[in-house]
């Protein structure tokens, strides 16, 4: 896509942004080699930084969302601080923010692939992104805690994030049900999980990354770091030709032409093809403070 300048001339996309766009699917594919248990499950004691069910036969790390919900349910019995979980998410968030969502999350990658099935996409309003924080506080913290207070262990809670999670349905319940059938047992996947999975698959075909945009508690949490993370996107006023290619490129519906380091961004870096937005790392020698670019 070319930028059309106000003068009627055109300018090609920025070379760095074009390269990033080209290599992103390959990077996402390469990260599958990290998350899909290439070395077995001996790292299950460490929470990962992406959305991938820990009950999946192919999972290297523990799911951070499931771990957080388990800690919340355990709280009435014993006050355990999730140091590992907090540490992993703090490091990833402070260094990269939601970059992992756009470049390494296997569930995000799956939605990218499902999104290629149907050409047109339904636009959704930006405020739906707050659903991620409702899920985070309601389903990951409060619900397991309240049911835990009522004496119900997390595994026995009839309603929980793990029971409603489409990643759990696709990556754990479905393969174990298929394995069970092949070994002569009954189909183990509940009707609720099959419904969740079906709804997710349909939604992912017609909306770009519906789970990430509306419901993902992990993405919502990591996106909170987008305003301070070392890796960030910087606006270069002198490169901007007011073509709005940046905003047109954004499949997450972020108003990139106004502000880019926001919670709705998954840092896929598609907007950098315009050339005015530059992916960069904060450096100690950078002058302090934000503000408009100096003119000229």
């Amino acid at each position: 896509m070319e930028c059309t300048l106000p003068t009627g001339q055109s300018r090609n996309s920025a070379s760095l942004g074009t390269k990033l766009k080209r290599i992103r699917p390959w990077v996402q594919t390469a990260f599958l080699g990290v998350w899909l248990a290439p070395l077995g499950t001996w790292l299950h004691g460490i929470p990962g930084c992406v959305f991938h069910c820990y009950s999946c036969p192919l999972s290297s790390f523990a799911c951070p969302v499931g771990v957080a919900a388990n800690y919340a349910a355990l709280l009435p019995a014993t006050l355990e601080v999730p140091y590992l979980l907090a540490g992993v998410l703090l490091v990833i968030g402070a260094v990269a923010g939601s970059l992992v969502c756009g470049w390494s999350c296997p569930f995000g990658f799956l939605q990218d692939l499902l999104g290629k099935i149907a050409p047109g996409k339904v636009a959704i309003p930006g405020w739906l992104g707050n659903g991620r924080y409702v899920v985070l506080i309601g389903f990951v913290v409060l619900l397991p805690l309240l049911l835990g207070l009522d004496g119900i262990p997390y595994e026995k809670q009839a309603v929980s994030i793990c029971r409603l999670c489409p990643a759990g349905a696709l990556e754990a319940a479905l393969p174990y049900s298929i394995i069970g059938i092949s070994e002569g047992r009954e189909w183990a996947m509940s009707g609720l999980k099959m419904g969740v999975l079906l709804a997710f698959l349909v939604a992912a075909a017609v909306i770009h990354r519906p789970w990430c945009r509306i419901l993902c508690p992990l993405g919502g949490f990591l996106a909170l770091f987008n305003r301070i993370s070392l890796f960030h996107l910087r606006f270069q006023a002198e490169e901007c030709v007011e073509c709005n290619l940046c905003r047109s490129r954004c499949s997450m519906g972020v108003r990139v032409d106004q502000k880019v380091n926001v919670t709705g961004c998954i840092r896929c870096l598609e907007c950098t093809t315009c050339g005015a937005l530059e992916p960069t790392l904060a450096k100690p020698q950078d002058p302090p403070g934000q503000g408009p670019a100096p003119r000229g």
Partner: protein
Amino acid sequence: MRNRVAQPPINPFARDTERHEFWPGFVLALVGLVVMVCGVRHLTNLETLNGDTAWETQLVKAFSTGGLQYGGSAALPRPDDLMNPTIPRPPSPLSGRSAPADGRSKVRVNTEAKTPCPT
């Protein structure tokens, strides 16, 4: 190829550069690293079935393998029973009231558990 979104009038030089400072992110990452190392070395309040103290890594692994065992799990009420006021509710293994006097929880970690999908 997506349709181009119409550009509202903007002044690029009036827009924030959104440059991030180095130190807040660096300090937060450093704190996270220290907390992570603490987590790897952290002994929890829970016991394993062998009577040892469970490491945090063992606890996290137990979440994904159905490895948490509750002291009075046989007496745990079913969700249906909880809704029925005529059935007396036994003390919960998760409630602080039933915690042993030595401060240890009645929840134990089975490090050998391998339940594929606990939920």
